[in-house]
């Protein structure tokens, strides 16, 4: 009770002062606020913003843990070769693997949260409004969508940029046009491209060992395909996620579980997820069709990615992660049910399109989602206008 009382007293003491939002934030983060309504005609639902955010974080925890184990697994496999007969307990869920994960992934998480929340606190104090919960999910998403060895200072700069330019200039949580986590990734991608692509960044220590006798590397499946070589991983490896890639994006299986969890708790929109899957499959089918119709020669630099089985696009790269956790962001996505179908479909469709045709970097999910973030209000506008028109017509018919 001591801490709660102290915080409460501090809150009363600083009421109306400049530092008040900082204390309020700590108070509401730890305890239920004491100013809630107890009577009258108010909606008293339990799922406030904080609980919504916590649910998403719960859905992200398995992915994060898997990413930690996978960090170690990829590291040791790159050094010793992949185990001949793979056993989950002996080769994957080991303390050695987890240790690598803790020492590489945890710093990313800490930097992301400390820097991001510091920016939020500074802006709350300057603007004199309450600290918003918006960064809770972003802070967890960011370490999951960057390569394992991203230098921490780069991440810190990107987080500052993403939170300030991606969110605060628009008015803070709930007002942003672009998904802040993807803004951070886009910044990293354009600012430090050598750290975001190639065959060195996906495996821990590969960059430091480059050029030495112990050099190791691990190319993503999309990277292999972009060079017209066949993917060297089995379908089950792709599905369960024992492949190189950004920290949290590899395991489609766990992302699928997280997605189902979010759908059952009604946090994320199943319409967006489903339509994005349909969009990705459609584009994949078109490319497969182009290949089977012999419109493209085997020497073409797009051949590898175009001939990739259409449904396997969902298993590799960040497509599944983006669809489940990023595209469904309730702030930056479409709000209308019909709009969500269009919004999701084009995310999947454009993701695969950019993935195949992007010459510098064989991945396009974050670009596609950012692009559709921009178009989401336009889609909603036309959906609403169409509805208005239909209802006007109906009322005219009824009165005529």
């Amino acid at each position, binding site marked *: 009770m001591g801490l709660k009382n102290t915080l409460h007293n501090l809150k009363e003491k600083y009421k109306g002062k400049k530092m008040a939002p900082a204390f309020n934030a700590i108070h509401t983060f730890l305890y239920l606020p004491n100013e809630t309504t107890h009577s009258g005609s108010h909606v008293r639902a339990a799922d406030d913003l904080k609980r919504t955010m916590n649910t998403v974080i719960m859905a992200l925890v398995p992915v994060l843990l898997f990413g930690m184990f996978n960090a170690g697994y990829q590291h040791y496999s790159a050094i010793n070769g992949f185990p001949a007969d793979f056993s989950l307990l002996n080769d994957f869920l080991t303390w050695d693997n987890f240790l690598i994960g803790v020492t590489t992934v945890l710093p990313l998480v800490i930097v992301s949260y400390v820097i991001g929340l510091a920016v939020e606190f500074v802006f709350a104090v300057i603007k004199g409004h309450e600290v918003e919960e918006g960064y809770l999910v972003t802070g967890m998403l960011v370490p999951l969508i960057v390569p394992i060895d991203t*230098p921490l*200072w*780069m991440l810190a700069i990107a987080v500052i940029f993403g939170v300030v*330019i991606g969110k605060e200039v628009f008015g803070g949580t709930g007002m942003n046009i672009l998904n802040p986590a993807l803004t951070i990734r886009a*910044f990293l991608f*354009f*600012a*430090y*491209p050598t750290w975001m692509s190639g065959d060195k960044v996906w495996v821990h220590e590969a960059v430091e060992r480059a050029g030495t006798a112990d050099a190791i590397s691990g190319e993503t499946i999309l990277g292999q395909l972009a060079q017209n070589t066949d993917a060297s991983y089995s379908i089950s490896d792709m599905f369960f996620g024992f492949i190189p890639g950004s920290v949290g994006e590899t395991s489609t299986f766990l992302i699928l579980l997280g997605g189902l969890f979010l759908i059952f708790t009604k946090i994320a929109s199943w319409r967006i997820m489903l339509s994005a899957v349909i969009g990705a499959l459609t584009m994949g089918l078109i490319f497969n069709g182009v290949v089977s119709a012999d419109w493209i020669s085997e020497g073409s630099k797009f051949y590898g990615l175009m001939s990739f089985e259409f449904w396997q696009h969902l298993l590799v790269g960040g497509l599944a992660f983006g669809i489940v956790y990023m595209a469904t962001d309730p702030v930056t996505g479409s709000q209308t049910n019909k709009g969500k179908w269009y919004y999701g479909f084009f995310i999947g469709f454009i993701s695969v399109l950019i993935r195949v045709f992007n010459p510098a970097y064989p991945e396009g999910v974050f670009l596609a989602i950012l692009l559709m973030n921009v178009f989401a209000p336009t889609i909603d506008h036309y959906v609403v206008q169409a509805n208005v028109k239909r209802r006007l017509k109906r009322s005219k018919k009824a009165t005529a």
Partner: protein
Amino acid sequence: MGLLSKKDANLILDPLADNNPITIQVLGICSALAITAELKASIVMAVSVMFVLGMGNVVISLMRNIIPSKIRIIVQLVVVAALVIIVDQVLKAFAYELSKTLSVFVGLIITNCIIMGRFEAFALANGPWRSFLDGIGNSLGYGLILIIVGFFRELLGSGTLLGFKVLGDPIEKTGLYAIGYENNGFMLLSPMALIVVGIIIWIQRSRNKALIEEN
């Protein structure tokens, strides 16, 4: 400013801050985004625009009473085009490498909104001396922003200033690069110039509340 009366001095000082052509009037953005990846190019662009705008304002001001208002835009274009060709030829003759960097953007000074804007808004209604001051003031305001943007983009994007390696050598890993610093490639792309200009506007408006429009 003993040389100028207070009214005349304001012609030069206003565009530097509270009536800046880029950050307040939002004119001349294209060139501010396109050529500010290097500080040197920004400076040359600023000087070129200063010459064109200063001279052009004087010429238009001298002719203001004999230009038929129906064809005044054509006349203005002819004057700007003539001045821009002079700048272009001088650059080609004495700074060929630089004129290659600036490429088409010297020619595009003709379409810089600031120039036509000042002709229309000021030179057509004022005497040559005041028009000259107005031209110099506005091009100084334009150049100021260009140089600020160019400074940050070259420093953070290439680690150099005017070509000097102020942060150390990225290939031999000296200076800042020895401790793992890397250049920010995003700074060299035009979208980042827009964001830098946006940040300047943000800082300016939060310091001077009078500039914030009512919604």
